[in-house]
């Protein structure tokens, strides 16, 4: 496996274009770059913010493990996964995945695989703060996310 894997957990926002450039700059063997950005939705004005808690250390390890799995499973030339933590307002970025490959099918599949696994295996938890000042409680895990993961097994 000769695929650079970059994983970061950070409070600050990420720069989509910079992350894509980091995987493609100065090389001519990349034919396809797929990015996925997950954003905080405002739920029709009822959400003030999400608070993202994570397990420091384990979050990075799980993201790295999943990214390396993707790089073993598909012929990738680069894979990047960035997950934010802390308070995130509606419209802001939460998560970014970038995959680079010679061919589009591998880049698409790897990006979807990464997101399905990050959703269910990376130790992050979302708590809702509502616009009316109350707590919306912790977001519940979705069965649909577990099902999405199972298609890869």
């Amino acid at each position, binding site marked *: 496996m000769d695929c650079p894997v970059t994983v970061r957990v950070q409070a600050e926002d990420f720069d989509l274009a910079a992350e894509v450039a980091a995987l493609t700059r100065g090389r001519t063997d990349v034919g396809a770059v797929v990015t996925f950005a*997950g954003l905080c939705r405002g739920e029709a004005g009822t959400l003030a913010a999400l608070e*993202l*808690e*994570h*397990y420091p*250390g*384990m*979050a990075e*390890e*799980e993201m790295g493990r999943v990214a390396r799995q993707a790089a073993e499973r598909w012929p990738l030339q680069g894979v990047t996964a960035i*997950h934010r933590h802390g308070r995130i307002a509606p419209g802001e970025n*939460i*998560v970014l995945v970038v995959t680079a490959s010679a061919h589009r099918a591998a880049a698409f599949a790897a990006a979807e695989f990464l*997101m399905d696994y*990050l*959703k*269910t*295996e*990376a*130790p*992050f*938890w*979302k*708590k809702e703060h509502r616009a009316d000042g109350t707590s919306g*409680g*912790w*977001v*519940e*895990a979705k069965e649909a*996310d577990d099902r999405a993961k199972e298609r890869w097994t």
Partner: protein
Amino acid sequence: MKLVYFAWVRERVGKPEETVDVPAGVTTVAELAGWLATRGEEYAYAFENPDVVRAAIDKRHVRPDTPIAGAAEIAFFPPMTGG
């Protein structure tokens, strides 16, 4: 043994981490959760539905029947909701 808690498990237990002396008969993750549930109302609440609480030993996901011997840090948390 160091224990760490996240999300609503942390909120219910009322602390993010603690160091405990685990009794000799407690050998698996499930047994540890069961023993913790006997330590007071806040623990009983956090572990009231043991099937829902997930665990990690030394920052790796583990199953309920995983032995805890040799663990430096055991974490309990709800199903993940990142991404």
